[in-house]
């Protein structure tokens, strides 16, 4: 495989890639001129342009062996029409059907020549790119070679494996997140480094402190200061949750600090609560425990709703106001947050909770913050910017053709069938117009080898 996948501006070739250079090339692309060109020249140019996009990682000889002049097409059938006519109407008259002028509509043409490169869409690396699991076909190819891809549950290391209809392929989700996520910036990398150092220091200190505390607690078994402490942390927790969900657009770094603080606070709360039997560092466990508590509270709350309807009706307005103020000023200690934190604390202690003090909205806020924390955590060890966000210019290339059925959660997809053409549409994604597709197809129709 020759390495000629560069997105140069001077050549202006379009590639299977989400690169911004590629986007620019795609935007300024014009079909080559045909005036004063021989037929051969036209076809040659069309072939060169389309091969730069379709399977440029495939050798020409290999592709020529794959090429098939037969093109799959389907025609959507209307069952009502089939039922109404057994076909004799179509064959009546001179064989073109007895139709009035109004009935006869110009048939939509089937873009057969756009399907010239359909056999390449069967390739595993191309299918991975089409399923939006990699940001370029070359990257998809690398994933396959590096063993991050399974087909029907078995590791497949051949990028040129031709998928059969019904094959299920899966890419390692971490690789997909890396491929499609925004990269770390220089500053983020530096920040990560610094934070790592700081955390290491803090952990060492905390470990030493915890040991000392444990000793003192054993001897004294004092409850009061502990309780007060947890109250404070809960207040802070809620404030942070609110800050996360607030609408103001902060700098990324600041947001990250907030999130990190929230994460720590959650951990602290869990360590204090008596319900949590196992103290876990994993976010998954933290999340499930917190949601369990919240769910328990929710169910308790529902029967009481009728009594406290008045209360509840007042509450949303109040809490909305409070959130608004929280947005404008700093969310230090709003009233609603106070009540929530109290209730939350009680829940953590496993006591009977006076749920009327909590509004639905606050539940939602806390829950949403928690969900995000769980799904999209800050993890400096990841090779992409965390929390994950799509890489720039991804949306301009994001489409999933119908011959694939993709489950993004597990980064798996099924190759349902071979791509087909239908009246008006071709399923092979190609950036070129008919003026290029047809001469390119013509080039391969004529055997020169």
């Amino acid at each position, binding site marked *: 495989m020759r390495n000629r996948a560069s997105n140069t501006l001077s050549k202006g070739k379009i590639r299977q890639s989400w690169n911004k250079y590629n986007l620019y090339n795609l935007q300024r692309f014009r079909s080559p001129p045909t005036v004063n060109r021989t037929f051969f020249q036209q076809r040659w140019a069309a072939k060169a342009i389309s091969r730069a996009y379709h399977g440029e990682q495939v050798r020409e000889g290999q592709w020529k062996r794959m090429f098939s002049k037969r093109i799959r097409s389907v025609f959507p059938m209307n069952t009502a029409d089939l039922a109404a006519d057994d076909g004799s109407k179509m*064959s009546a008259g001179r064989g073109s059907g007895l139709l009035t002028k109004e009935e006869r509509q110009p048939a939509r043409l089937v873009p057969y020549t756009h399907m010239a490169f359909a056999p390449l869409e069967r390739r595993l690396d191309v299918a991975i790119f089409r399923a939006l699991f990699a940001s370029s076909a070359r990257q998809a190819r690398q994933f396959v070679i590096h063993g991050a891809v399974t087909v029907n549950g078995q590791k497949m290391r051949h990028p040129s494996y031709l998928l059969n209809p019904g094959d299920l392929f899966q890419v390692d989700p971490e690789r997909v997140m890396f491929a499609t996520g925004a990269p770390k910036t220089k500053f983020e990398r530096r920040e990560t480094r610094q934070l790592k150092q700081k955390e290491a220091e803090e952990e060492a200190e905390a470990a030493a402190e915890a040991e000392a505390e444990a000793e003192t607690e054993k001897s004294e078994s004092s409850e009061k200061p502990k309780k007060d402490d947890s109250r404070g942390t809960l207040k802070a927790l809620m404030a942070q949750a609110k800050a996360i969900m607030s609408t103001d657009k902060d700098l990324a770094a600041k947001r990250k600090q907030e999130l990190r603080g929230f994460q720590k606070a959650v951990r602290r709360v869990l360590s204090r609560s008596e319900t949590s039997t196992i103290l876990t560092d994993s976010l998954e466990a933290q999340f499930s425990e917190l949601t369990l508590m919240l769910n328990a509270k929710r169910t308790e709350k529902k029967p009481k709703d009728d009594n406290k309807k008045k209360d509840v009706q007042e509450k949303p307005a109040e809490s909305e106001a409070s959130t608004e103020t929280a947005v404008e000023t700093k969310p230090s200690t709003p009233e609603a947050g106070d009540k929530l934190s109290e209730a939350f604390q009680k829940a953590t202690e496993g006591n009977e909770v006076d749920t009327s003090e909590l509004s639905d909205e606050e539940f939602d806020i806390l829950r949403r913050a928690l969900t995000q924390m769980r799904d999209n955590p800050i993890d400096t060890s990841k090779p992409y910017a965390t929390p994950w966000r799509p890489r720039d210019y991804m949306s301009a290339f994001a489409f999933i053709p119908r011959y694939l059925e993709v489950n993004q959660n597990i980064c798996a997809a099924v190759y349902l069938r071979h791509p087909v053409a239908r009246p008006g549409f071709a399923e092979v994604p190609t950036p070129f117009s008919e003026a290029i597709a047809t001469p390119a197809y013509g080039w391969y129709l004529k055997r020169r080898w």
Partner: protein
Amino acid sequence: MAPRIQSQRVSNTLLPYLTSSSTSSSSFNTSSCSPSLSLARQFSATAAPQTKLRRQMFEWLNTDGVNYKHHVPGEMNYLAKGRRDADSAPSNRPFPNNRNFVSESVLSEELRNEVYVQVVEQKKSVRAVSVQFGIDMKRIAAVVRLVELERRQRSQGKPMAMPYARAVHEMVPVTPLAERPVFHEPINDLPAHPSTGAQIFYPTTESRSFTRIDAGRVFSAAPEFQDAQRAAYPHPSDLANVIFKKPRKIEWVGKGANYRQVLQPADVRIPHPQQVQMERDRIAFPQERRAVLDRHAERLAKQEKVEQTRRERAKKVHEDSINLVEPEGGRFDFRIKDAFFTNKTVGHDGRAPFAPGRRYGVPTNDRKRGVVKIPTFVKA
């Protein structure tokens, strides 16, 4: 999955976290992208090696191209031809030059789960669910597989790509799960048969109706139907009825390599032939809506039963041919299959290419040119 973003208002509150497309960061990035503007170059004695093309590119990226950098949840953000206005509807064509390719919608998370629930838990037939939601049957099977796999991996605690999934579903068009099912795709696609590629001039008498059955016979060069046969199938979908009960009823014509099935009419070859029969019933009895639907359900049930027994029989035959032995204390099981080494299976000289086992006296073709050396299929 986390609560999907439903409305613009909500998504805006989440945006800084989900996509971090804040104005401050984007403007910061763009300025750092264009070296001609950056401060780092100012002390250099020579001008920055900036080609005209590069300058043009960054110019475009900072003006019109800015729109494509980040997406708006729930909207397609494809390259538009020419300048894109803020109020113009987003195009569904990812490639501005190709009018024949559109970005088609994908199934939403809720719809996928609903399909899974209906097929696996409520035990509805794939055919019925396909008609209900307007989803291709192959896609339904794939959805069931994928959701099952997802649930398994979730229970195993394997890593998932939730933020990625959310982002993709924000970028591509999505078929939602609605009260009244929105049809996802055409479900009665008729594949074009290669034998219909040729244009055939076939004169027939005008007094006799030339139906789709006759056309299929002409395309596959089968002898014309006699009047008695023609009378047996007044409508092509009657033929479909017969063939679905007994698939072996399909006629074969030709000799040797040219031995082929007679091309069947569209009523047989579409994925949901029962619908044609229902429509015929509806035309015949326009007043009895209820009865027509009842008869349709009956037909579907019958068809499902036939297919079910067919599947079970095939499964049983397959299972019977395998003898699984679990030796005591061994780590491995042994699957003992029946093989038959007869004249027919190994060829007259025992060297037939289709003979079971490896062959003698014939070089392996793993070094021949043009032979595919990598796996051609993976067992599911």
